[in-house]
């Protein structure tokens, strides 16, 4: 499985309140949430993002609230992968559970700029910056998480376990 698209670049500690502010949380319609994605940090994001585009950020991406609306609105907006130096733990779990690919890779976070065209190979964890001709090795998922992802997320994994 691969991701290919252009990059939106952000800094440290991008929190879930700026990814999807609480004023929109009385809805859990994925499309409506996606129309407000990143609004408090990048008001034009939802209009500009194209299917396949990537988000690249520095430390502690997704810190704060446990709202699953955050990875959901990014996935629905068309984001194919989030690359960051580190992720906040609840966001990390939520992303895996709903099937939004995320990769931790400090070198890539430093070596990719806004607008770069980037390709990610999820099986190998390789990140290729096509604009600059550079390549990075991201952390592939631990085996258990790969199982979750292969099953199609936590719900399908849970159901397959029940059938055994």
């Amino acid at each position: 499985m691969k991701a290919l698209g252009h990059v939106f670049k952000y800094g440290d500690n991008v929190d879930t309140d700026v990814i999807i502010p609480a004023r929109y949380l009385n809805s859990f319609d994925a499309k409506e949430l996606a129309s407000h994605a990143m609004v408090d940090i990048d008001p034009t994001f939802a209009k500009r993002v194209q299917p396949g585009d990537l988000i690249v950020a520095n430390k502690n991406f997704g810190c704060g609230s446990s709202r699953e609306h955050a990875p959901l609105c990014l996935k629905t907006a068309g984001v194919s992968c989030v690359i960051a130096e580190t992720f906040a733990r609840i966001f990390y779990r939520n992303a895996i559970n709903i099937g939004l690919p995320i990769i931790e890779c400090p070198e890539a976070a430093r070596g990719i700029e806004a607008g770069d065209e980037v390709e990610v190979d999820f099986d190998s964890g390789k990140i290729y910056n096509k604009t600059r001709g550079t390549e990075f090795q991201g952390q592939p998922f631990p085996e258990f998480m790969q199982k979750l992802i292969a099953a199609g997320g936590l719900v399908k994994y849970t159901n397959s376990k029940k059938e055994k």
Partner: protein
Amino acid sequence: MGMTMTQKILAAHAGLDCVEAGQLIEAKLDVVMANDITGPMALPIFREMAENVFDKDKVVLVPDHFTPNKDIKSAENSKAIREFAKAQGLSWYFEQGKSGVEHAILPEAGVVATGECIIGADSHTCTYGALGAFSTGVGTTDIATGMAMGELWFKVPSAIQFVLTGKPGPYVTGKDIILHIIGKIGVDGALYKSMEFTGDGIANLTMDDRFTMANMAIEAGAKNGIFPVDEKTEEYLKEHTKKSYQIYTADEDAEYDEVVIINLAEVRPTVAFPHLPGNAKTIDEIEEMEPIKIDQVVIGSCTNGRMSDMRKAAAILKGHTVHPDVRVMVVPATQKIYKECIKEGLIDIFIDAGCAVNTPSCGPCMGGHMGVMAAGEKCVSTTNRNFVGRMGHVDSLIYLASPEVAAASAIAGCIANPEKVGDR
């Protein structure tokens, strides 16, 4: 190799003799909690896995965020969890009027106890670590799975040990201590880890101080925060819960990634400046600066809406009036606390000083409703997050503080030192 307190609780709930940091386990759950934002979203996901909850005594629903309902969508969401709770016959559903902010009501009503493994679809679920439980926030899919199966996967965390020594000064509370700690280690200083508090200084902290500190472990990126169990904890449990419980202690040879020593006597009243809970400044540093004029003060929330918080704020406000340029909202965290405030005459003090007193709700803390801010406005708040746009307009600013600093600031009209107002 020895285990930390958290690792011991997780091992017991996974049916294992021992676990180590990094290990992936599946642990049995004692309490699974969701609210009116995360609960409704979890229901369709839950239905993909099960018809009935795994245990109607262990699944808890608390409508507290957009309640009393602020609009039609919020009312629909509350209705969804209300009907679900009824249909499933849940023992613990907290309806408006018999309720409060989830992380205040669960310990108060005796729903959570020592040694338990607890998940909640709200990041501040780490609050119950104050009771010596493993307690952590998760998302909607995780909560739906917990409701259906009664177990969930966890990566066993390593830990940072915070050795607390000495006695805090008269105007230094759990809030000041945790803001000081987050200021020291940063908002990702405990990423993926447990914050395990130890040391003889803990004896000098009230249960409310501990709830506040455990509550904000997430603001340092931690998976959980946890306190050892002492007489104060046991006294609290005796007063609040009928549940039987088990006490876990860290092994003598438990391994910690890091040991941080905090002398409580050296901690000063502390304020977190915008836009991160880790931007800590002491009141002494603030007094050296140009006065920071404010527009609003919020005293309440799952971090600081408990009885002792109300008493501390009232002690400062008593006989004073709120500065003419400032709006103040006091939000007792539960109905029981609200009633106690009436009984002790605190509501009179608040209203006579010119504060609005609101019914228990999470509303102001996350800019949901009640106290949403306009562009350029500044708020001193006893809540837990001061991210961009957290309480309203993206150009509004939040300063996190203790109830005493908040009350002193309400009187002064700018961020102020409670030592200069109070009479202790």
